[in-house]
């Protein structure tokens, strides 16, 4: 942040020779041809579709060949009376809150301890690695580990004499909690590394002061690390909201492929996919769009709320 200000300040002074400096004139000339390609691609292939979903959400449309039928807000009204939608919506919020709580708790925990351990770069790299792997692959791996009859977890529990702890991990009771836990495992790395990168910027002198004052590790964390990490954590929280709402592949693949994922595990993104493309019946493109509009609004609201809640007096250091 400070860095950016600094560099923009310096470029402002360098341009202080007046708007007529050759560089400034040149920059102005190149602006349009340089920026346009990206703006066009982004607008046509990303912005336009996301705006169009607002329009489509107002129709009933069963896909190619069907005449779209105007429903107004009908799709939205119907959504809220639809148990499957409500389930998916609530599940998304559960993912957001439960997984979010786990990853931030673990993230802060790792940040506090790894900084003081030997080989912290290696540790950091190993904590991070799952973030680079396709969630589909991780879902497959967990499917093998948690398989109730032959999976590694149950057979291992049996082998070490803890057979009474065996569970039908992927059964209707436990599958969603298992998704939450494994998702947390999979996502923790990225957020930990973000928090650690923030912690790296905290001047060591502050910690030296702590040491002189004889602070414990808990005190150091509470008095120095946490307040100075707050801003980074706020951005990470926003990032988590976006990540959580769009999480799809992992949940889709978790229960095995070939059959639809069980309804109890549907989140908003799975709902959009199943309504629009995945179910055996006719696609409900309007309803799928309505769901995506709802989620877009949810993201917007949450981001604003989060920023409000977490904004504090900025700590300069």
């Amino acid at each position, binding site marked *: *942040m400070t*860095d*950016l200000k600094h*560099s*923009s300040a310096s*470029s402002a002074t360098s341009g202080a020779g007046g708007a007529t400096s050759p*560089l400034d004139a*040149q*920059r102005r000339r*190149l*602006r349009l041809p*340089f920026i346009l*390609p*990206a*703006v066009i*691609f*982004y607008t046509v*292939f990303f*912005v*336009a*579709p996301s705006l*169009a*979903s607002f329009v489509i959400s107002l129709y009933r449309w069963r896909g190619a060949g069907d005449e779209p039928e105007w429903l107004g807000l009908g799709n939205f009204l119907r959504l809220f009376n639809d148990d499957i939608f409500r389930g998916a919506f609530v599940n998304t919020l559960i993912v957001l809150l439960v997984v979010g709580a786990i990853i931030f708790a*673990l993230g802060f925990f790792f940040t*506090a*301890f790894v900084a*003081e351990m030997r080989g912290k770069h290696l*540790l*950091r*790299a*190993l*904590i991070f690695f799952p973030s*680079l792997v*396709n969630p*589909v*692959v991780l879902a*497959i*791996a967990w499917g*093998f*580990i948690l398989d109730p009859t032959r999976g*590694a977890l149950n057979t291992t529990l049996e082998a070490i004499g803890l057979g009474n702890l065996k569970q039908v991990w992927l059964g209707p009771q436990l599958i969603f909690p298992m998704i939450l836990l494994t998702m947390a495992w999979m996502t923790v790395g990225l957020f930990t*590394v973000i928090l650690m*990168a923030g912690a*790296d910027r905290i*001047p060591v002198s502050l*910690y030296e002061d702590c040491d002189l004052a*004889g602070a*414990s*590790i808990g005190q150091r964390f509470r008095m120095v690390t946490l307040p100075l990490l707050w801003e980074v954590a706020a951005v990470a929280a926003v990032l988590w909201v*976006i990540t959580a709402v*769009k999480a799809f*592949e992992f949940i*889709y693949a978790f229960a*095995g*492929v070939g059959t639809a994922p069980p309804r109890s595990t549907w989140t908003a993104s799975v709902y959009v996919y199943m309504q629009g*493309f995945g179910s055996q019946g006719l696609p409900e493109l309007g309803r*799928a769009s309505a769901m*995506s*509009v709802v989620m877009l609004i949810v*993201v917007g609201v949450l981001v604003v709320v989060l920023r409000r809640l977490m904004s504090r007096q900025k700590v300069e250091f």
Partner: protein
Amino acid sequence: MAVQFADQRTSEPRPRPRGGTGRLRRGTPAPLARRRTPLRMLGMAAVWLWVLFNLAIFVWMLLSSLKSDGEVFADPWGLPNVWRFDNYVRAWEGSDLGTATLNSVFLVAAASVFTVAIGALAAYPLSRLQSRSSNVTLMYFVLGMGVPLQSIVVPAYIAMAGLNMTNTLGGLFLLYVGFSLPFTVFLLTGFFRTLPTRLEEAAALDGCSAFRTFRSVMLPLARPGIVTALLLNVVSLWNETLLALIFIIDDGRQTLALAILGFYGTMLYNSAWGALFAGVCIVVLPMLLLYLWLGKNIMDGMTLGATK
């Protein structure tokens, strides 16, 4: 890239302890931190447990890919009795994983290079011009980072169907470029801002054209940032599944993520578990190699947006 980013930021208060800095290693805290309280021991043990668990999962994947189908379940934690490298051949040939890998390689390479190329072009003036319109443009890109991918799938599908471009890698390419641009522009604008302006000024005074200045002065300077942007796009597109799942139907045009999903589906009937894990490793290993080679760039880039 972020290497420079990070350095400029951290080097003043505290040089990063990196290999060779010797006595400047101030990252390791002072005496009290070394005292072994029970809490500290417990915390460190937990960290190690977590890390070893991650490692174990990946070793397990790798070993499973070399076992016979029966062994995958029967002996999950042991070494393979016979090292079955032919699992990879079975996966590569059996389920079109070979074709899918090639599709993915071409698609990911083309989309990442193109995204970074036009992203860098846009980021350069956005980073240099302090005008209202350029701030608004940048904001326009940044907002896209908050749009969940599922918001575009239905309209994009309808539009692509109208253009007869569903079920083509070309259609997927266009969408990949569209959704990768926001982060790429955001990242590169931030990076360009950290680069000094003096060289460009000199080039402009010497009469270089704007494009020439960009190409021969800025791009070489920006190389670390460009590399990071490329890497992050490669990672995210290599793993992208939702759009591929919706748009691609033909087996011959599958991407790797899609092929492995399909493979997993058929496995439930033909139990070729060993080959499935070989497929899993074909998805994971390129990312692992990239990570071992350029991991610092990847990690710095991913954390950059948040810590800046």
